[in-house]
């Protein structure tokens, strides 16, 4: 089992009603983290996280990155103590 920390920004923070959380995962997989977050915070969060057609992480208007700034994918593995940041992907104006 590993513990992964999450940081929620902008719309994610509103959906989670918190800016930080931690999850104990049986498998060190992004897919498990996404499933746990979706289950905990409900269908709107689920819709932000998972693309309903591809069942991959939703890339539309979102950005999920590890501590090195790399966008994570469903098949990626996670390290114990790692922090994943959930951001909205928008620019300009």
């Amino acid at each position, binding site marked *: 089992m590993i513990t992964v920390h999450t940081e929620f*920004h*902008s*719309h*994610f923070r*509103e959906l989670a009603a918190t800016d930080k959380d931690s999850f104990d995962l049986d498998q060190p997989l992004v897919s498990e983290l996404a499933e746990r977050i979706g289950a905990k915070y409900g269908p*709107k969060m689920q*819709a*932000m996280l998972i693309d*309903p057609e591809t069942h*991959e992480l*939703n*890339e*539309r*208007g*979102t*950005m999920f*990155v590890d*501590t*090195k*700034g*790399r*966008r994570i*994918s469903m098949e990626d593995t996670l390290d114990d103590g790692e922090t994943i*940041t959930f*951001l*909205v*992907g*928008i*620019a*300009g*104006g």
Partner: protein
Amino acid sequence: MESRLLRVDLTTGECNSEVIPHSVFERWIGGSGINNWIMWEHFLTHDVNCDPRGPDNIFVFGVGPLAGTGAGSGIKGRITFKSPCYNMFGDSAGGGKFPYMVRFSGFEYIAITGKAPKPCYLHISNQEVSILDAAHLWGKNTAETHALLQEEHGTYPSKTHTLTVSQAGENGVGIAGVVSDALRIHARCGGGAVMGSKNLKAIAVQGSGGLPVTRPKDMLAWSDDFRKKIDSNEAVYGFKRRGTLGAVEMYQHIGSHFWRNNQGNMFRGDEIRSDNWVKKYHKYSEVCSSDCFIACDAKYKIDGTESEAAQKYVGETFRRPEYLTTGSAAGALDVRDWAEVAHWGKLTNDYGIDNQDLSCSISFLMELKQRDLISDRDVAELFGHEQSLEWGNMEDIEACVEDVVFQRNAFGVMFRDGPYHGALKYSAMMGKNFMKYAMYGKGGASFTEEMRPFPTWMNNMAVASRGADHLKGIGLIEKFQRKDLSKIYFDGRIEAADLSTTELKGACTAVVENQVALLNSYGVCMFHWMLDPAGYTPQDYYGKAYGAVTGIDRTPKELMHDGERICNLEKAFNSRVGMRREHDTVCERWMWEPTEEGIYPGKVAADMFETVLSDYYEWRGWDKASGLQTRAKLTELGLDDVADVLEADGALA
């Protein structure tokens, strides 16, 4: 579908309406494409090297075929002209209700030439055109001018919508923009100076006509499908809530702000790092085009309790600031109070002036002062009044804005064309080289975001047809690391989304430029596409709407060629005025000075710049050594006539 062009010669007072021949649409599909073609043709009979502030320049306003049709993608109007601040191709988009009112009045394009003998404005009401005296409007800002015109022309046959310039445009300030309905600025490239130099204060439009749609059933079906797609995208709700300010926290996390003239890339100040403040100002209201399924805009009204500085602005109401308004104030100028940031947005809009150029000009001088490269005496001589040049000092920043708008001192005159030309002039005056601290690309003001970790976007800053630009290329594939998009665009390859390699970066610049040219030609807002570039592809998804409205059915491949053709015409214009590979470059800080903050430290443009630029030319089919277009590429795009002009000018490879 018939498209009507209104030609106005302000020197003679002649106004003529003409139908644009169908053959023109075979090459230029609408919107920016037609605007560009009108300008190109104009400069076949007028000196392309003319003074942009002189009567030989042309000012074109146009809307694309999807604008106002219920396509649900918002509406963008576009102005096109030779830029007075950068002396090359210039254009700028703006949204709101003015563009579709132009269509309702019976026109899609307005081309204005010459110079009126005295201040005037253009009034259009259902194809009736008048050139009217503007003596009572001269000297007013954009909000005042708009209010007076609305009062004057009333609400029949429709409410009056306006395009206005402020005192900055009247005074020939090169970075003066044009403001739609006192709310939305066409900021870039100095369209306000072009209007002002023609003694044209405003365009007021009223219309009650309908819009032709060739296949209405197809259009309604497309629109219905688009609505469903938008409604099923949860990210849209987040975007509605915050607009582009949703970028604040992402940029803070990755280090993509433009702090203190880009000496850093993170905002300082506890409150502005977060977008929680947005709730204080957020009030839904009808400031968006009625043809937008997202409607990301909102108004604020300051009640004085929001922050320490809010007391200064009690009762002030305006549009919620966009990200780049925030980036220029909270970033470039280090303003840390949100009421002041919001006020900066209103101030620059009312004065109709580009806040990117302005903030980069002021922050350039603030940095010189911070580094003791200029003395208090130097500052006093430049400004002629008390001026601290302290970071974040809003009162002194406001004074700088008025110095430029009213051209009231050496600073205002020297920086009227933005940071690049201002820095050159100031360096010459002081006998020192300060260019290291000027932020620009291709002579145009940087837009206020960190660029150094992002090779595609850096390339955009160098090659964009109107100077450093985030709206011609948009490097979101790499910034958001969208491997899914990279795979779609490049046959399964993912390198376009990989920040660590030069692979596909030049190609990505070109492909996205072509796509954006299509969006700009349709006359739609880019944000829908940005929220799902895989789903709302300009050449495929939007192409179906284009076909339904115009009856012109194009394959995705043909439409991508249309986009490429538009980019090539902009390039050709710049080649005619002498721009070559050496002009496709960026400022010294971006090129050589490493980033120190954010999650991508130690990045400089120089690491990848030349490779990406050469790849871009190769992907474009242009000559790598000179940067010029080749006849072979122009022939492939059906632009032999353009190649002939370039050859005659010695501007063809």
